[in-house]
């Protein structure tokens, strides 16, 4: 299971000729940590910049997504208005549409709005997801209505009920959504590939692709880059495990 990862780590420390020769012992004969600095300081591929871009974009998408999804979830879970349930089903239905179908019109939309090749273009379309709304709504439905009623009796408006009662209680759900959104966006490939043309705006996955295209023959460098790509994910995962498992089960139990 883990063997590919191990190979990757060892390979990232080897010089190229070691990778090409066949030896029984997978450990490097000489350790070359400068593979890593070579990747980071490479002039054609500004890795540090890509890291920043990915984190920046993913962070914004996560924040916006949590905000808009929680508002929408609140509206669907708590407020009463005609057609609420049908609209919700419709909203859910959009989740069924394959990404490719919406990519093309979204792209032309970005062209019209002159948002091609920009941070905004990367962030805004990704900030609205039906998945987030669905997840949070399920969560909010489990919060007892009596709390709302108590607050309303004390004179709270909808907005106050939302901000002071529901939001704090929905925190576990929000955390799960935040994790998933961040992860999903960090590794997002199709959309940045299509949208970004300038080198300085590339996100990490795209940067990796170009790196592989240009330096593909140097497996050791590529592996170093891959390790750097994956390590933050592994750290995040180990730290946030509990929430993740919770989140998957939360989203799936209702079918």
């Amino acid at each position, binding site marked *: *299971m*883990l*063997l*590919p*990862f191990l*190979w*990757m780590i060892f390979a990232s420390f080897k010089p190229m000729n070691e990778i*090409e020769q*066949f030896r029984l012992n*997978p450990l490097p004969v000489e350790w070359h940590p400068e593979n890593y600095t070579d990747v980071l300081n490479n002039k054609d591929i500004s890795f540090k910049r890509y890291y920043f871009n990915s984190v920046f974009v993913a962070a914004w998408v996560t924040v916006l997504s949590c905000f*808009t999804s929680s*508002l*929408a979830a609140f*509206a669907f879970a708590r*407020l009463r*208005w005609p057609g609420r349930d049908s609209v919700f089903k419709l*909203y859910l239905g*959009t989740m*069924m*549409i*394959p*990404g*490719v*179908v*919406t*990519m*093309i*019109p*979204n*792209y*032309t*939309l970005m062209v019209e709005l002159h948002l091609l090749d920009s941070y905004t273009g990367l962030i*805004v*379309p990704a900030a*609205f997801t*039906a998945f987030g709304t669905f997840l949070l709504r399920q969560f909010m439905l489990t919060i007892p209505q009596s709390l709302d009623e108590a607050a309303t009796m004390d004179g709270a408006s909808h907005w106050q009920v939302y901000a002071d009662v529901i939001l704090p209680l929905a925190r576990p759900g929000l955390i799960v959504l935040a994790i998933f959104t961040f992860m999903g966006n960090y*590794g997002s*490939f*199709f959309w940045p*590939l*299509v949208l970004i043309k300038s080198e300085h705006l590339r996100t990490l*996955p795209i940067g*990796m*692709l170009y790196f*592989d295209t240009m330096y593909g023959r140097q*497996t050791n460098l*590529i*592996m170093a*880059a*891959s390790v750097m790509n*994956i390590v933050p*994910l*592994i750290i995040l*995962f*180990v730290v946030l495990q509990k929430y*993740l498992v919770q989140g*998957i*089960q939360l989203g*799936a139990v209702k*079918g």
Partner: protein
Amino acid sequence: MGFLVFTLGPVLFSFGAAFTNWNLMKTVPFHWVWFGNFTKLFAEPDFWLYLINTVYLMLGIPVSIAVSLFLAVLLGQRLRGIVVYRTLFYLPSFTAGVALLILWKALYNPSFGPINTLIEMFLNAVGLTNVQAPTWLSSTKNLLALGAERVEIVANQFGLGARDAIIIMGIWTAAGGGNMLLYLAGISNIPQELYEAAGIDGAGRWAQFRHVTWPQLAPTTFFIFIMSFIGGLQGGFEQARVMTLGGPAGTTTTLSYYIYTKAFEEFQIGYASAVAWVLFIMIFAVTLVNWRFGSRYVNE
């Protein structure tokens, strides 16, 4: 209410926009060709190849689900250190992305990749020195011996090639992932009494699995199958773009990759949209199956 409109608006807009590009040609010479794109795409022999590619790659799905189930059953035994194992199994799924694809591209390298190195070691040890290790990503061979130029069974195409490489990688990535967790949750919901009753009736481990675990997990399995099926129809894009650029002789081009190349490399937006819609209709059909039969399985 204002919040609602604000959040719904963009989603509905992209929903609507998906309809508008139906039959349009490129933005400059603009005219309606109605069903022209569709007839063109069905007549194109490559389209059928790509459809078959997509379906072929989906053959790994049952294997992946089976492995997930197996792992879940293993983990469900309440051994010590279960959390550690669960983390390890889930890791490939979690870190999935371009970095992993590039890693596997290196692993599959026919000259010095560890996979072929190990295969060759094995072949030498067993004495089969004239059998060659597969060339994976540059080979058009596959387990069903489907020819690449014309879609039919061709004898000398039997072997392990690009598509199989992707399938294997896919199984590794997905086996310990979300599906395994879903199965774990499902298993923990099975009441112990059922197992005890089965034990009293004299059922051994395997029989218990067949008659208690498997039927109890049926709704989960159904859900997983449908979701994987839908995902599989849309998939294969990243693998194709990063690892093979559509594969030797177009063998790893899936429908999503085809849509991408048509839309963003050749800028035939109308044609690409038509293909995307065909894909959507296929997915929609599967979803209908889910609605029709899914409720039968839900036991509230």
